[in-house]
């Protein structure tokens, strides 16, 4: 994949992010460039010109001896000639650097920090390195990464990863219970912008055909020849329908029964039947007789009827991977699948043997990370949105060898996939918080916002140029691949170094757009919370407009509530896990029967990544199984929801706004009144934490008692701020 594939454990690691205490522009950049993009543009041009000219004039373009093997010539041509290489193997010179400056690979992450060892930062002084380390210590991770996530926890441990490689910067560390020790897995959703970098780490071999032996359940040929299963099934289905509705058998049912009986008897009457054929025909005869008895007597529907099968082995032709190219991670492209976990009814543990998977509609890469480690990635590219499951695109699994204690290495291994592999720091968190609020509050088109984002990009570019300039000596003479990687490292470091300034610029712009006067005033406002809410189940970011001043929202929602109606076994089953989880989350928790080629609309549209609530006037009568949030601001202070006033079919959130009235504005949502309205919350809702419902409608006193006992066993006395006795109501 790509011409600059990286070797295992090579670049793109990051060091802990440094949060510069003082927001000074890089050297040579006017201080007012931070707020005046026009000046910034000029500065960028000047710096670029300097970067192009300075190495030749000041550093002498000396190719390092180790690489060039030449005489330390004084010009680029000399360096190239000494190396005697061409194309990708050609040592870098001024023109290469110019090209990289002009057309660098996009950094692809907003807030990343490269892991610069001594070898890769030769121009940095020891003092500078020391300063960097000291700064790093001042900015601890927002979410600690456990050595061993709790085994069996259905929800795992949510963590935030630095940079912007993952949706909401979030990953989850799971430890599935298994007989041979916990199966630790990192689950995350890669942003589409980071995919090309991930794919560059992979070598996907050509698939070749191979014949393999498989054990399968198969029908007996004589059955298929006489279509006995089809005829008996048709008679069964017809009768079941009548029994279910309490109706007498119809003429059609009688005819189907007679046809099945006749066909089965014909086979039974065949001379010289094998023992297997005899057993098959008798199996169908028994069902035909059962149908006949039910036609006569009526009653409850019959148990499900399975066709007669035998176990057999057969040779099938399958696609298997051929040899993989060297210097990249071996990857196999295959039909998409998901971890097929189970939630133990006895222990409540999420269990998975490390092997079982359920099929999905699309393709994925199975990646060998070496030393017993592996990964699975379901890409955006190659999974067309119109024919495959939207919600699985970008899903990443990293698997540790069996056993506990791999938590930190699960994160560290992301480096092999060219992804940021360090926990998120506070500075990165604030950037994520601000960008989430820009999206949630629909500020992208606010005056000055586009300029602010351009400025932040310009700041990063300036750092890139400064770093390339300062390291020109070490870069010149590198071969194509190595240079490409080093420049990528520089981009990561530039993103990291520029982060405090970029945060400041964006904070100023957001403050102006939201009437806070200045970034400082915004940061000091009560609702400003640039850290995620960790309730033990999900990590969510808040939106400061609601958090800062919930009164207008509470007024808009007066007399209204959010609700969700629970079906199936009822709410007691739901509260075993304590989360109202999205379809995709449920799959990883082991509480979903993933079935077949899920051509399910939610999965196509992305709705499978969310749970949905509805808004309604607080009704006088509440049915059983209803969860009610009487104060919607409890949930609407999150920054990750979107809503429609009507059900929309086949629409993904990314393209829904213009045509279908999608909104993220809580004041608009408060006006939604159609019964089919939906408010989608990403991942899910923690039913036991701060987002707990205010009312839970039980079907009967027995269900309420069961839940009360369940809560008592777990030491849960309150949901939200209310005593559980007050929350649990009878419908």
């Amino acid at each position, binding site marked *: 994949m790509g011409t600059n594939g990286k070797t295992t454990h090579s670049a793109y690691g990051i060091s802990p992010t440094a949060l510069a205490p003082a927001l000074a522009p890089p050297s040579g950049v006017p201080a007012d460039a931070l707020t005046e993009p026009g000046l910034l543009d000029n500065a960028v041009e000047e710096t670029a010109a300097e970067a192009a000219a300075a190495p030749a004039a000041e550093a002498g373009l000396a190719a390092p001896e180790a690489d060039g093997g030449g005489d330390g010539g004084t010009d680029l041509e000399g360096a190239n000639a000494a190396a005697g290489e061409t194309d990708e193997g050609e040592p870098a010179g001024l023109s290469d650097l110019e090209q990289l400056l002009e057309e660098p690979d996009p950094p692809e992450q907003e807030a990343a920090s490269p892991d610069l060892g001594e070898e890769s930062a030769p121009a940095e002084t020891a003092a500078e390195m020391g300063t960097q380390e000291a700064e790093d210590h001042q900015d601890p991770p927002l979410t600690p990464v456990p050595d061993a996530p709790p085994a069996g926890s259905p929800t795992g441990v949510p963590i935030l990863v630095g940079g912007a490689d993952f949706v909401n910067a979030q990953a989850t560390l799971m430890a599935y219970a298994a007989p041979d020790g916990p199966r630790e897995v990192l689950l995350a959703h890669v942003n589409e912008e980071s995919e090309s970098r991930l794919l560059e780490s992979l070598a996907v071999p050509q698939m070749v055909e191979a014949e393999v032996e498989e054990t399968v*359940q*198969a*029908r007996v040929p004589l059955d298929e020849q006489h279509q006995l299963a089809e005829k008996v*099934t048709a008679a069964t*289905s*017809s009768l*079941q*329908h009548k029994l*279910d*509705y309490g*109706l007498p058998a*119809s003429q*059609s*049912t009688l005819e189907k029964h007679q046809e099945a009986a006749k066909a089965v008897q014909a086979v039974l009457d065949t001379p010289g039947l094998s023992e297997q054929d005899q057993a098959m025909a008798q199996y169908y005869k028994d069902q035909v007789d059962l149908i006949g008895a039910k036609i006569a007597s009526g009653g*409850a*529907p*019959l*148990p*499900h009827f*399975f*066709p007669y*099968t035998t176990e057999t082995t057969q040779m099938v032709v399958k696609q298997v991977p051929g040899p993989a190219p060297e210097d990249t991670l071996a990857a196999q492209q295959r039909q998409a699948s998901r971890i097929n976990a189970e939630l133990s009814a006895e222990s409540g543990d999420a269990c998975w043997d490390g092997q079982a998977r359920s099929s999905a509609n699309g393709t994925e890469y199975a990646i060998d990370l070496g030393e017993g480690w592996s990964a699975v990635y379901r890409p955006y590219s190659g999974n067309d949105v119109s024919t495959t499951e939207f919600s699985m695109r970008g899903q990443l699994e990293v698997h540790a060898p069996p056993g506990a204690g791999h938590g930190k290495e699960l994160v560290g291994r992301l480096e092999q996939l060219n992804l940021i592999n360090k926990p998120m720091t506070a500075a990165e968190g604030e950037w994520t918080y601000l960008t989430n609020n820009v999206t949630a509050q629909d500020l992208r088109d606010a005056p000055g916002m586009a300029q602010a984002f351009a400025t932040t990009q310009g700041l990063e570019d300036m750092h890139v140029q400064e770093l390339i300039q300062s390291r020109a000596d070490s870069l010149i003479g590198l071969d194509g691949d190595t240079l490409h990687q080093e420049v990528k490292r520089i981009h990561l470091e530039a993103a990291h170094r520029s982060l405090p300034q970029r945060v400041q610029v964006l904070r100023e712009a957001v403050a102006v757009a939201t009437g806070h006067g200045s970034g400082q005033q915004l940061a000091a406002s009560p609702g400003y919370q640039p850290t995620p809410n960790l309730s033990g189940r999900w990590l969510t970011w808040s939106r400061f407009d609601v958090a800062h001043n919930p009164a207008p929202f509470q007024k808009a929602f007066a007399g209204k509530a959010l609700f*969700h*109606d*629970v*079906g*199936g*076994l*009822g709410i007691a089953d*739901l509260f075993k896990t304590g989360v*109202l989880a999205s*379809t995709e989350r449920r799959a990883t928790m082991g*509480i*979903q*029967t*993933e*079935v*077949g080629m*899920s*051509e*399910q*609309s*939610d*999965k196509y549209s992305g709705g*499978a990544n969310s*749970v949905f609530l*509805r808004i309604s006037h607080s009704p006088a009568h509440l*049915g059983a*199984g209803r969860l009610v949030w009487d104060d919607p601001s409890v949930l609407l202070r999150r920054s990750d929801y979107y809503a*429609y006033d*009507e*059900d*929309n*079919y*086949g629409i993904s959130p990314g393209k829904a706004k213009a*045509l279908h*009235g999608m909104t993220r504005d809580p004041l608009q949502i408060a006006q939604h009144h*159609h*019964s*089919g309205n939906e408010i989608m919350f990403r991942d899910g809702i923690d039913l036991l934490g701060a987002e707990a419902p205010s009312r839970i409608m039980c079907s009967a006193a027995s269900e309420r008692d069961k839940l009360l006992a369940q809560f008592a066993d777990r030491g849960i006395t309150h949901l939200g701020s209310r005593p559980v006795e007050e929350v649990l109501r009878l419908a």
Partner: protein
Amino acid sequence: MPDPTASTTGRPPWLERLAVLIAGDHAASGDPVDAGAQMSVAEPDGTEVFRAALARHHRIDDEDPHLIWIRPLLGGSETLKDGPVFNLSLVRRRSLGWDTGEVVDDTVVLHLRSGQVATVGPAAGEELARLQRWDRFTFRLTAAERRALAALDADSWHGSYA
């Protein structure tokens, strides 16, 4: 469980037709299990964005007479070993909020409040096969679970096949 023979008199013709299609009462054989309904939804420009068979139940919303609850059938599988299986969390209820409805040939066309256009007609091909697979699957559930599904009043499903 709705009575498939119950009269729907008093409803507009298109709603009568909708009920007939969803129940499978239009079957040429006279046996509802041999027929059923499928729905396609198109954008205002005519682009089809959704197609699915419909389970044999529907319900008009208690508070909004211009809203019909249905259950599109998507996904599911059937193997000789496992039989027919659907994920009841995925096969969730959906709503049709309509402005106008009309019978066009043997279909019902609903102009939805969202701007989309839904066309409900006789199920055919893979959609009919999926509906009949669903019919067989539902008899793996308890009578109470079948009643709960037919009530079309739950937003998510917890328990077996969830």
